[in-house]
């Protein structure tokens, strides 16, 4: 499977990226929005506001993310929404300056482990694969971070890597 890495929003503090599976129209994050906008408009609104604050004011500080949602050290985490809200959005955090947004879905009430939800398991494991692919691409020199950490740079245009 191939993925294209794209930037979607950038502020003074943090840049947001997402990925598009080659052959599909929408990116992972767009699919998350489309899948949840009818049933969870308030939750999406809250996530949007938090992203705006992260991008423009605070940076992607660790305290705003539910960490360790993936394999050890792969950066996969979830952006916190309000405690009573029901959406889980998986992302990969690269320090305070860059976040790759993935997909997610409804968090069933009382869920203790993500494996209790087929949808969340699927989205989470996909993002683990994306994180692993990006790490490999960085090691192989296919992509690199800019000096400020807010751009992904490559001789590839568009930036498409294998997962």
């Amino acid at each position, binding site marked *: 499977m191939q993925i294209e890495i*794209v930037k979607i929003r950038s502020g003074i503090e943090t840049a947001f990226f997402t990925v598009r599976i080659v052959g599909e129209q929408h990116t992972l994050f767009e699919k998350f929005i489309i899948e949840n906008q009818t049933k969870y408009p308030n939750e999406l*609104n809250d996530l949007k506001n938090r992203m705006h604050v992260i991008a423009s004011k605070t940076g992607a500080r660790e305290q705003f993310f539910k960490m360790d949602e993936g394999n050890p050290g792969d950066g996969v985490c979830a952006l916190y929404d309000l405690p009573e809200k029901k959406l889980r959005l998986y992302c990969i955090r690269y320090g305070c300056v860059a976040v790759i947004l993935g997909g997610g879905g409804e968090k069933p009430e009382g869920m203790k482990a993500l494996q209790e939800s087929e949808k969340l398991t699927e989205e989470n494991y996909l993002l683990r694969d994306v994180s692993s692919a990006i790490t490999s691409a960085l090691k192989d020199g296919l992509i690199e971070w800019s000096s400020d950490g807010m751009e992904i740079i490559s001789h590839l245009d568009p930036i498409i890597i294998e997962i």
Partner: protein
Amino acid sequence: MPMKTKKNPARTHKSDVLDDFFSVKDKKEYNKTEKNMLLAIRIESAMKKCGYNKLQFAQAMEVQPSMVTRWLSGTHNFTIETLYDIENLLSICVINPIEPTLIEVIDHLHVTVSTTKLPAGNPAGNLNYNISNLTHLQTHKPQLLKVIPN
């Protein structure tokens, strides 16, 4: 000599879905979110300054560590009582019941003071002259307190 391959940043992806998502429609809700997140940062910074890790802070506040995680997430709706307890423990002020004195900002005037010799006569008077020529300030009668020459 091998040609240097040009490197480009990842392309910026735009779509109606993203444009609609990122547009801020409810400014009140946005402001509330911003304040909650900034408060969380303030508490976290104060915790570190006082030398508390999450577990120690939880023990000092007599709550579960998961509650501290929630406090720092920027999503929590604090009670006044909890904020008072946090203020006490961390010696910070997050609640200010005293109305701050309103300062009317008339205009911003950037004054550059150089170390070259001031003109003879009344330097303060000269500066007053310059200010009074700014007609939009005349109605507000700005006061120059003192000019201290070298």
